[in-house]
């Protein structure tokens, strides 16, 4: 034993990986499990499509100089909130499934030196990507659905506002996706590797 002279071996602290690495692996996971990703993304897409259609309707009515009754506005708001809630629950559910399905993989990564925060990052990024693309497509679909038949109003439409709404939809969709995945991601990261390995899925 060389301990007398050398002392205990030096243990370093594990480095946090750069975001780009987590991004690469997250994107990889999405493209490989495309079916599951599409279903998760579709939930967000539908919720956001609805949100955008409400926005677009408002714009169209403004362009046509139609006053929106306060009652309808409140109703719309409720519908929007409900649809977003449904989307959030849907995303949380698919992230939970995705985490459960990948217990072993998570445990393996921790054995190979992954830090807890890397696992969290991985799942948040995955969900964030799905949320981003889901809501982008959803917002476009919602807008097209409402505005395409009303092309007569295009000239008088407030396009600046339209872009703002579009952006808002994408931000809300991505944000909600990340929030929805937070619980499952943290749960996954905290599992001791031994437990993760034991689970037979």
């Amino acid at each position, binding site marked *: *034993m*060389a*301990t*007398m*002279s*050398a*002392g*205990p*071996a030096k*243990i*370093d*602290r*594990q*480095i946090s*990986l750069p975001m780009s*690495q987590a991004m690469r692996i997250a994107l*990889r*996971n999405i493209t*490989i*499990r495309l079916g599951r990703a599409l279903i998760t993304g579709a939930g967000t897409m539908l919720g956001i499509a609805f949100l955008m259609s409400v926005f677009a309707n408002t714009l169209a009515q403004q362009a046509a100089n139609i006053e929106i009754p306060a009652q309808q506005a409140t109703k719309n708001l409720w519908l929007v909130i409900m649809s977003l809630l449904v989307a959030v629950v849907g995303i949380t559910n698919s992230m939970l499934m995705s985490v459960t399905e990948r217990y*072993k*993989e998570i*445990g*393996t*990564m*921790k*054995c*190979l*030196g*992954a*830090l*807890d*925060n*890397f696992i*969290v990052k991985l799942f948040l990024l995955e969900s964030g990507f799905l949320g981003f693309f889901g809501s982008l497509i959803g917002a476009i679909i919602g807008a097209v659905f409402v505005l395409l038949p009303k092309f007569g109003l295009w000239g008088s439409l407030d396009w600046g506002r339209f872009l703002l709404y579009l952006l808002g939809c994408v931000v809300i969709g991505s944000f909600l996706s990340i929030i929805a995945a937070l619980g499952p991601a*943290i749960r996954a*990261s*905290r599992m*001791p*590797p*031994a*437990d993760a*390995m034991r689970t037979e899925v």
Partner: protein
Amino acid sequence: MARENDAMTGSKDGTPNAAEGAMQATAPVAAGDATGTAGTAIVNPATNGGASTNGGAANGSSPATAVSGARAADNYYGQEYIVRAKNIKKTFEVGGQPVHALRGVDIDIRRGEYISIMGPSGSGKSTLFNMIGGLDKPTEGTVFIDEVDMAQLDAFELAWLRCRKIGYIFQTFNLIPVMTALENITLPMIFAGASTDEQLEKGRKLLEQVGIGHRMHNKPSQLSGGQQQRVAIARSLANDPAIVLADEPTGNLDQKTGKEIIDLLKKLNKESGVTIITATHDDKMLDVSDRIVWVSDGRIDKIKRRDEVDITLGTLEGGVH
């Protein structure tokens, strides 16, 4: 997130016992040998014999003989303890009932040794594996890896240890299904912060070394069990660990493939001097082991060196107590 959660807790007691004290008494000589001349190396076997006896006494096994002394003499590291487990106990709660998976295990493992842990199903092999590998925390007792008490490490240090010092091999291979063989091997190097060039070069080299260079771009699902295990072995060596822990590495393989995997592990053990600790049911593993540890019901039954074991396979399992 979850910072403290993953850190090892448990006994913080690092006080050396009598046997350790005796071992440490020989340490200055041993340390001298590391840089010493051929002359000092000749003294080594005797020194080592003493150290081994102390280590062995703690485990209740018989004293070391000249054989292990000679073996250690041509490898200075042979007498350095890479793993020391002191009175490891692990109790699980299952439905309010305690299950004692480990009931007080002491084991010292030298650097470069090939150790097989044998025992019936449910005897606690995997649990011991998890404790030594820092994958779970003992309820009681201490595990030292390279003289470092694992209970004292925080989550970052533990992750570093798992990444650099220990390689893991599992019965079910546990490759990441969405990644190719090469990507699976480079993953631990990514975690270690290696550059892309280093990763690829080392990854290729390791795959060649385990004999599947030609399948490096295949996904695990496109590989046979034996090939997947070879990838897993290469992956375990990615960051040049001091220890490779293998939990039933041949458990999912047929006899012939299992033998190939065992031979590969032995070859790597000989060539790179990596310590190999396997938990196994597989009698084929006995022949390549330096020492064999039998556990039953959460305790160590006996520890024997390879040359003390009469290999008439089959009668072995029930061996003398």
